[in-house]
């Protein structure tokens, strides 16, 4: 098994599986986040966030998710290093845009930028929600007292134009990363053929556009409305 994990296709298999796991996470994450813009009182989002925080399945999946991120990042570094070593002397002239997309060639850079965004994002919200609940106010909804996550998120977006722009850029970067990553993960698993090649690539772009606009629209909404 150990040679499988370090064979070229084995490493790509790990990237693909962890990537698909992260697609699922990001889709759920976006769904809950969109509650932010459908109810300005924040009640809907607070209920959604409370459900996510207390749901047993989510609690079980959460550490696996963390592991998914770590594996995806570590393996990408190992892969990139080995791919880099496969060409000790580079070319003087390159016309790469003729034959491949920018996103497909720069997944490491895109991924690194998304990681930088992720760290900022965790410091902004996740850390306080998870480990510093005293910082959050509480609200009463339907007779129960729950954390006011909405105010934490909305106040940042209402107060800071810089954060708004940062989150918009974060969403777009993630979308570009996924535009290649989505179909690529199926290709790596062998779940592709000449009929599905174009279809998968198209689905990949649609998925990427949904994720990018979905995440970008939230700070944009607060930027324009407040």
């Amino acid at each position, binding site marked *: 098994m150990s040679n499988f994990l370090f064979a*070229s296709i084995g490493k790509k298999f790990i990237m693909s599986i962890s990537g698909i796991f992260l697609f699922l996470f990001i889709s759920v994450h976006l769904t809950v986040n969109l509650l932010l813009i459908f109810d300005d009182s924040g009640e809907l989002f607070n209920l959604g966030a409370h459900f996510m925080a207390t749901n047993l399945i989510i609690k079980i999946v959460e550490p696996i998710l963390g592991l998914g991120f770590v594996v995806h990042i570590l393996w990408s570094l190992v892969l990139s290093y080995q*791919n880099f070593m*496969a060409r000790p002397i580079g070319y003087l*002239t390159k016309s790469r845009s*003729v*034959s491949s997309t920018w996103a497909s060639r720069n997944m490491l850079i895109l991924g690194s930028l998304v990681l930088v965004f992720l760290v900022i994002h965790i410091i902004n919200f996740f850390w306080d929600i998870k480990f510093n609940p005293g910082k959050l106010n509480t609200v009463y909804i339907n007779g129960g007292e729950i954390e006011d996550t909405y105010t934490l998120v909305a106040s940042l977006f209402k107060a800071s134009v810089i954060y708004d722009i940062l989150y918009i850029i974060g969403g777009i970067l993630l979308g570009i990363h996924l535009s290649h990553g989505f179909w690529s993960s199926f*290709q790596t698993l062998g779940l592709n053929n000449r009929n599905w090649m174009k279809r998968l690539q198209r689905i990949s772009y649609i998925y990427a556009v949904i994720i990018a606009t979905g995440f970008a629209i939230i700070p944009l909404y607060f930027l324009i409305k407040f």
Partner: protein
Amino acid sequence: MADKILKKLNIKVWRQNSASEKGRFETYPIENISTGASFLEMMDILNEELINEGKDPVAFDHDCREGICGTCSLYINGRPHGPDTEVTTCQLHMRKFKDGQTITIEPWRAAAFPVIKDLVVERSAFDKILQAGGFVSVNTGGVPDGNAIPVSYDDAEESMDAAACIGCGACVAACKNSSAMLFVSAKVSHLAKLPQGKVEAKRRARSMIAKMDELGFGGCTNTGACEVECPKSISISNIARLNREYLVARFSE
């Protein structure tokens, strides 16, 4: 109508005396090249001039000069086999270049393809991958009657499309990771799609991938550059098949 003449070109070419010595670029001006000349004919003219001047001619690989042997290589102006699609360098014509242009010619760059001299690289790594599994070792018996072994039209077509690979190495040269996945996938696919080759499909994928990794080729990141630069337009759907064969082989153990 006579072909136009390119009055002057600057040929910037990689010169390296041997595998162990360091290389460098050198620029040679060349005059009056017909647009009807092939790229390799231009190289021949350049070499004749170099020989007349008492200089060492530029070493480059070539053989059939009709696009079927896969011997000619050359990374021309940032692209394997130069600025044309579905051609080898011998099929590339000088009409693809402009008068006064500087043409940069580099060897294939990959750890697994070391430079022997100038533009000639050692491509025996491909042979080693083939020796690892690119064959049918089961006894296929005598020559069967026509149509005795049923092969569907689609399978036959896909197999033939993959078999069009001439092993030139443009996929490795084009890939940002110097990955040989397109080559390996073509060799695995053209056999895996036919009844005689299907028997050993899993073992073949495993041993060829193991050899590919051992020889220092990079991994595939699905940029698709190989397919675009391949003179035979081998589809990256073959890479999906290779991944599938390999993963099934690993997980069925």
